């Protein structure tokens, strides 16, 4: 009972701090919600559509024009420029006007009919990978259509049925089943990793910040006094408020994703709840741990921010971990966002059983318990250190 009243007392004190220093409200609620808004509206399209593409048509035949029309009609591409030469088209890419262009050589249609294998070329820039690969996908389809056009005409003249034509042109076909996120929606694939990453960043930074501010304004002693010198009670009281606010924000975010935007998932709601709890407790604890290691506001915050920012690359949501060198693969184990992403990906997105993701589950629990190792150092810091600006 005594502990509970102490925890409540400290929690109320913390609530006062959160209300007084505006930066807490901004970083706990406003910035995270803004980030949610940013990513969900930015990637609302899902897959980039109508990318500007150019055409260099030296042939000017009905076949070439129909190829260009087909290209324009494709979902991801829009033909915005016709150039007289490849140099002009290349300049347009360098001027950022287009992402790709199709080059149709002179005499393509007649050579195609005469069986002299003309060459169609397309160029796309890979300096923006999303645009480049989307445009190249459409251009590839157009080239295949052009190739098939001749065979189709010959076969139908010989009296083949559409099914026969189809199997003659493409004896082996691929039937793709991209599970859960069938249209390869970028919103689903980026927002679910980057926004939690930013929330983890704020959670770790603010937990180090709030301990550091106690040092900076020399209120640490008073804080410990309220807990009767019991650091565990002091920490629990302090961070229970942080955890509640963050949990609210995180649940709101997940509700917005799955309840309002209807992001695909195969895992149950309970998996999401479990993931959120681990995310909030793991991150806050990691911040406390870093502060315990380096009991200085400036150093602990620097480390927290550098570590969390590194997480965006090391979580393996954009560039897969299996593509990195072995030491980096090992380093990724020390990144909270990596385990969050793996748990999300396995248990929420794909709906696989928790037992298959046990390693990441245990890792996040371990992050939650990490402050235990440094808790005495935190207490020592509060009692003895002096803030040096």
């Amino acid at each position, binding site marked *: 009972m005594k502990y509970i009243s102490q925890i409540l007392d400290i929690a109320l004190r913390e609530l006062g701090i959160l209300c007084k220093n505006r930066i807490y409200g901004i970083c706990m609620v406003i910035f995270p919600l803004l980030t949610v808004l940013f990513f969900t509206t930015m990637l609302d399209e899902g897959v980039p559509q109508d990318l500007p593409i150019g055409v260099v048509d030296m042939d000017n035949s009905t076949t070439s024009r129909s190829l260009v029309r087909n290209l324009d009609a494709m979902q991801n591409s829009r033909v915005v420029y016709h150039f007289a030469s490849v140099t002009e088209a290349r300049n347009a890419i*360098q001027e950022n006007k287009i992402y790709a262009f199709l080059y149709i050589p002179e005499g393509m249609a007649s050579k195609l009919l005469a069986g002299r294998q003309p060459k169609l070329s397309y160029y796309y820039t890979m300096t923006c990978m999303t645009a480049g690969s989307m445009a190249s996908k459409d251009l590839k389809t157009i080239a295949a259509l052009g190739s098939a056009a001749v065979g189709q005409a010959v076969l139908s003249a010989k009296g083949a049925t559409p099914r026969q034509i189809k199997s003659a042109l493409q004896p082996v076909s*691929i039937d793709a089943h991209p599970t859960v996120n069938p249209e390869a929606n970028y919103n689903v694939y980026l927002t679910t990793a980057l926004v939690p990453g930013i929330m983890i960043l704020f959670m770790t930074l603010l937990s180090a910040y709030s301990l550091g501010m106690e040092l900076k304004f020399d209120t640490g002693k008073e804080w410990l006094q309220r807990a009767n010198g019991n650091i565990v009670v002091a920490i629990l009281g302090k961070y229970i408020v942080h955890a509640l606010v963050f949990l609210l924000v995180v649940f709101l975010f997940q509700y917005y994703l799955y309840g309002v935007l209807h992001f695909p998932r195969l895992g149950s709601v309970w998996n999401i709840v479990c993931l959120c709890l681990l995310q909030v407790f793991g991150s806050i604890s990691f911040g406390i741990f870093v502060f315990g290691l380096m009991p200085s506001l*400036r150093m602990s915050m620097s480390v927290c921010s550098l570590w969390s920012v590194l997480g965006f690359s090391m979580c393996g949501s954009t560039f897969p971990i299996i593509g990195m060198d072995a030491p980096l693969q090992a380093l990724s184990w020390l990144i909270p966002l990596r385990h969050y992403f793996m748990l999300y990906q396995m248990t929420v997105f794909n709906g*696989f059983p928790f037992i298959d993701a046990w390693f990441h589950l245990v890792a996040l629990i371990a992050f939650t318990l990490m402050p235990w190792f440094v808790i005495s150092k935190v207490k020592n810091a509060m009692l003895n250190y002096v803030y040096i600006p």
Partner: protein
Amino acid sequence: MSIFHKLKESLTDTLYIWREEMRQIIRDEGMLIFLVIVPLGYPLLYSWIYNNETVHEVPVVVVDQSHSALSRQFIHDCDASSDVQVKYYAEDLDEARSLISRQLVRGIYLIPSDFATRVLRGEQGTVSVYCDMSLMLTYKAIYQTAVVEASRLGAGLNIKKAGNFTKREDAITAQPLAVADVALFNPSGGYGSCVLPAVLILILQQTLALGIGMAAGTTRERNRNSQLIPDDNPHYRGAYRIVSGKALCYGMVAAVTGAYLTMAVPHMFSFPQLANAWDLLLMMIPYILACVFFGMTVSCLVRYRENVMLLMVFISVPLLFLTGVSWPESNIPGAWQGVSWLFPSTFGVRAFIRVNSMGATFDQILPEIRILWIQAAAYLAMACLVYRHQFRLAAKTK
């Protein structure tokens, strides 16, 4: 007082402030970290992370229910490709799924039992590809390998059926229309070569803003009235002196780190480097100036020195998106395009990628350069205004 005397005096003050700021960078751990150590160390780590550029040998599992020469050939071809590795064979789809669930493979190739029969009968045979969609790059590797190998297998079958006499005829049967697929500027489609140039330029802006913000926060904390001008220091007596003294200091630091970021790092990790030295210089000067004055303007918002970290660190990820390096610039919604105009990084990154990765000439990036100069001028004016306001406040409180 003669005009020369006045000029000399303001120059001395400027240089004094410059020296003080330089000293502070070395003495203050936090500033040293963000202005020197991070710009030197972080790019190396990032380059290492993305150094392999593409994913190779993505593990897949095969469910071969056809057990035919044709199906085995397809599996061999896929395994021989650079992107996919056939790591397991499973009896059925459920077993294969459990391998995905345990993260041992990233996709399934299912070859149905009637595959060879159908193909040899002249019907269309189908290979089903199941992909874990949580990673875009592995999905692309698995799917595209299957498509390429399927069309190769099909072309081989068509050649056999055609009964041609010459190799040339075979080639035309396989591909009546030849196609050249040319990826420009980043021919291997490497992730690092695409993202890293943007990250390098962004690091410069972010670290400058962090460093400058910390310095301003420290000054504010030491001031009795929480103002941005140190009290009782005769050298800090004019807004322009402070702004130019600070700009001199941070501009010098940024010149060194900027040269390192744009020339040394890409060279060390063999990222694309097509920029003409002169064009690069003409691009970096307005960018660094814009970043320095942007940093000064942001620093005025900082109450405690640590708050700048809370402001600037998280914004890095959205800023990277606003540059158009991962989500195409043409598809960024108008409102966010407007927001992106506030940050030098947007145009700095765009100009740098075009000049450095795409070999654009200076006149091709002129629109970006113009905006960078406008930003530099605007943020300079804002920084001066804020410091003049601070002087007015200081006069009032005295």
